[in-house]
């Protein structure tokens, strides 16, 4: 693995952050690189192992330290789920009281029938009919938002929809980015009030942009899909995310909002945001 290539493509912010810590120790490592001498009180986190009294990286990435805990975080990795993450995924299969969800992760995720809040917050009943009507809730190909409930020892990810804020996603578009570009925030679901556009920043790198969901049952949003300016706003937000991803910049509610605002200030149409001149403007703005 060519480490310099890896670093070049890595999210700028992650590199910058890791450069600032603990000088003298390895910051960017490749598989098999030694990180530091293994001492008795070192905690070996994910992506490390001990060989001949040295702590060695098992993945390529940057070294992260929390007190004595040392972990190696991969860059451009496939998504590794953590409990509590908000994710967006696509239903691939139904059966055995569960939906299989593709999260673009290491392994497929499962959403159990019992882990789903029914539309409108209706109380679930434990009957056989429920199982037969699963397709009425989500069918194959549907896009859903969910939260990671648990990660099993063997790596299987269990999802759940904790409240009616989660569930079926429609009237919007999906943007795929690298999972490590999505910044961890307090809120991964947000609404840009000035555009009337909602986003769900899936920690797995799938970001949904569309008409914000309401808790109410039904498809009240259907009519709005004819509104051209709303559609353009959705496109603008989606483009902002794509641009940030291309520039390897961290994606957060704030950075998306800034990018969209910048494009409006410069009078750039959503369809032209991917062009070099806007990238340049964005770059200068960040610098």
């Amino acid at each position, binding site marked *: 693995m060519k480490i310099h290539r890896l670093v070049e493509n890595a999210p700028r912010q992650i590199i910058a952050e890791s450069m600032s810590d603990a000088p003298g120790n390895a910051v960017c490592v490749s598989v098999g690189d030694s990180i530091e001498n293994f001492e008795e009180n070192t905690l070996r986190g994910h992506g490390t192992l001990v060989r001949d009294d040295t702590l060695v990286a098992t993945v390529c990435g940057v070294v992260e330290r929390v007190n004595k*805990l040392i972990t190696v975080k991969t860059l451009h990795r496939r998504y590794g789920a953590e409990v509590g993450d908000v994710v967006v995924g696509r239903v691939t299969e139904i059966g055995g009281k569960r939906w299989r969800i593709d999260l673009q992760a290491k392994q497929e995720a499962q959403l159990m029938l019992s882990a789903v809040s029914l539309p409108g917050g209706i109380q679930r009943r434990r009957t056989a009919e429920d199982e037969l009507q699963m397709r009425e809730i989500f069918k194959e190909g549907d896009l859903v938002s969910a939260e990671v409930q648990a990660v099993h020892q063997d790596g299987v990810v269990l999802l759940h929809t904790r409240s009616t804020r989660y569930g079926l996603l429609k009237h919007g578009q999906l943007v795929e980015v690298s999972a490590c570009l999505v910044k961890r925030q307090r809120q991964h679901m947000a609404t840009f009030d000035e555009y009337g556009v909602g986003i769900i920043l899936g920690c797995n790198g799938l970001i949904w942009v569309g008409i914000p969901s309401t808790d109410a049952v039904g498809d009240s949003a259907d009519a709005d899909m004819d509104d051209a300016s709303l559609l353009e706003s959705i496109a603008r937000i989606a483009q902002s995310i794509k641009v940030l991803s291309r520039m390897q910049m961290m994606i957060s509610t704030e950075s998306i909002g800034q990018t969209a605002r910048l494009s409006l200030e410069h009078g750039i149409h959503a369809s032209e945001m991917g062009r070099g001149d806007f990238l340049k403007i964005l770059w200068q703005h960040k610098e």
Partner: protein
Amino acid sequence: MHVPEKKRKRETGEEDIVIGVEQNKKNVIEMQGKSCLHEVAWPPGKEHEGAPTLPPAERKDVEPARQYPFQIDPFQQIAINCMEAGHSVLVAAHTSAGKTVVAEYAFAMALRDGARVVYTSPLKALSNQKYREFQEKFGDVGLITGDVVINPSASCLVMTTEILRSMLYRGSEVIREVSLVVYDEIHYLRDKERGVVWEESIILAPKSTRFAFLSATLPNARDFAEWIATTHDSPCHVVYTDYRPTPLQHFLYPAGGEGIYLVVDERNAFREDSFSKAIGSLEEDPDEKKKKKKVNANGGKEQSDVNKLINMIVEKRLDPVIIFSFSKNECESLADQVAALDVNSSEEKEMVRAIYDGAVDVLSENDRKLPEVVSIIKRIERGIGVHHSGMLPILKELTEILFQEGLIKVLFATETFSTGLNMPAKTVVFTHARKFDGGSFRWISSGEYTQMSGRAGRRGLDDKGTVILMIDSKMDPATAKDMLRGTPDPLYSEFHLTYPMLINILRVEGANVEDLIQRSYRQFQSEKAIPMLEQKRASIESQMKDIVIDDEHLIQSYAGLLDQYHVLEKARRDMLMRPKLVLPFLQPGRLILIEHGGMQAESSRSINYDARHGAWAAVINFEVLGKKEKKEKRRVIIDVLAMCDEARGPKDPRILPSQEGANGVAFVVTIDLDQVLELSTIRVHLPADLRTKETRAVGAKVLKEVAKRFGTKGPPLLDAEKDIKVTSDDYFATVARLDKIKRMIDSHPVLEDEQGTLLPRLQALREKADLKHTIRMLDKDIQKAGGLVLEEDLRSRTRVLERLGYIDKDHVISTKAKAAAEISTGDELVLCELIFSGVFSSLKVDQVAALISCFIWREKSEARAKVPHEMEGPYASLRDAARRIARAESDCHMGVDVDEYVDSFKPDLMAIVIEWCHGATFAHIASLAGDKTHGGSLVRAIRRLEELLRQLSAALKLIGDVHLAEQFDKAIEKIKRDIIFAASLFL
């Protein structure tokens, strides 16, 4: 008792239900001669839409989920109707009234409707027993506690409240399907430490969930129901009943007396005459009593009171009996005292032996030889048992089973026996009417009394229950009445914030802690107080308006000047009475003017500045206190001879003002330098020794002579500038201002009015000012009550988490916080700090367990245990980590005592845990723990240790150090064996 204003009849086929309305708007429901009270709280905004205030009628469209062979009581029927209607209900009734019927029906309903029901109880032991009871009745029942998990996918789940809370935080699927949560013993909500768990779980439960709360009688049930209705946006009913299936008779047994006195009869009437007879028979002479006790302690022939009483109970066939005492040790010693008693027949003895053999069969060879296990058989064979939390769990459960089977007829128990399962006796005895409560003895509260006495009287077996209260000290009738038939304790919130609460909420998308606080019962109660405060404010305001003063603004300016004068005068004195300046003048015999007893009251009555006459006294000597302290903290006290009120005596002297001095006698009084008003130029000669009455009389003569010679003007004063040599300019400026104010007061226009009206007007003004102040305070209270409770605490705790790196500045939780969220049995922050500083990584398996034991053991110990040599280093790091956290907390204004916090991690269990890890027998570690530590406490501690180790292992797996997690798993393997982890007899 209740006079129904109007009666309506609701025809329900075979039986009649009569519903009346009581004065305070509660519905009185009568069915077949029995009655109960009902009311309902609707969520705000819905009560005006014609929402019915009557209880829901029985549902005819569905088959009752459970039929009873007997006619159920009205309160049970109403509660069931409420649940069937899809509402929440709070049932407040005595322990023996049959609240279990409500829980049972809830289970049956869930099975009928394909929903799930959760039953929570405050104690693990209680959960085990309830599980067994429900399992026998319904089959599809599961159990989840910190120790065991059985059939977790069942429709009906029995669990501890802590488990329910963690399920809610994790969003377990159980929660999504749960239609009803039954909370048993909801009055645990007011538990200082754990009460918050009840509140959290109620608040976090999904909106669609309904509740059935079972509680002892509550005076403020309505408040609680309103809270539920508000937070869950659905009606909550309250069903009360005072009904006891078996009425109680309350007796007193005076210490050393010969018999018992009936003080409250089965109709709940208090009998004054026999109460005073009982109290009267208490021996007066405490010495004699002591003598008697000594004889008992030495094993004298005379029987102890308890012994006598038990013999009487057995003779009169009032057994089975529960004897409550408030200490574990006393339970044991009382049981030893009745060694001669044998209440079981030979068949019964055989049965006891069979049950005993079955129970100890689960134990290992070694454990069967434990002295506790061996010795208990002699006692239980005779039908005598002991029950307290210090017993080995298996023996405790054995006792419970035998008691339920009627094979234990005399049971010595602590208060814990009064909670939970229906285990009634015919008679209940209290050995003491007072209870030791954190530092002092107090009378048992009426709530506690009701709870414990509720064990008396077996439904269907006894026609009445007997309660006997042993008293050894005087008790006034009011206290007795209050205790024996008083109102139960109200339900109040003990909601507080915890770190796991913050972390768990911060990790959920879209949740915030403020919302949780906003929905807490504490906030509700706080806001509920507002109307009352506002009413109070309004009444004070109108009171204030009623005070009319002529020329108020003039009086006000006059009073303002007087106040200013007093403030300045005080400032002047403070500047003058500096020890450095005046100490040289405090020679013996110096005449000084001091404050007298009535000074405060007089100044509020004065209409002018010069009304403040002091009292002239002669200095005897003085002393400077606190010489080692800083200058500001030093105090000067002066012994003076002053004329005092003769009636008050020398112990509590009241100094008379100088005009009245001639009528008093001279006493030596100690005063503070602050109390000195002026110093005179005169020194008088006093007798050297003033300890006798005669010499003081000579002194008094001198003081009277002074008063006579100088009259009202008093002796000449020392000049501040020339004599005392004050140099500060401030002093002279103050004096000048005082003069100016004096002139302004003297020429004030109000003085032109009639002098007689001035005083009442001034007094009225002062009263008005006081009221104004009260209103300001009330306004503050109202504002506080309306604001978010615990707001400051929330801010401090968030700052602590930020500082220690658990959350970042945007409140996104870090790896550390994720690890902390796995821990709930011990101090999560200190444990996390220890993990992340790598302390565990270098420890051996047994050492890991030993170090963790410091987080479990909280029992008091007189002598600090020795820390094993190999553990000294790790223990020091633990204390370091604790200190670091306490410091961070105190920096964030949390008001923690750092040393106390650090000392709360006790090393007492370390040596014991190491031995246990090495495979020692329980007998061995019990002997290591010493006589003072009960076996049951050890068992509980090590079980909790296992629970905590499990959580830590999960936390380590989460952060990725599987190797270290294995160490913890190995530690669990080592400690999980033998009697400590013997399965419950109820499972």
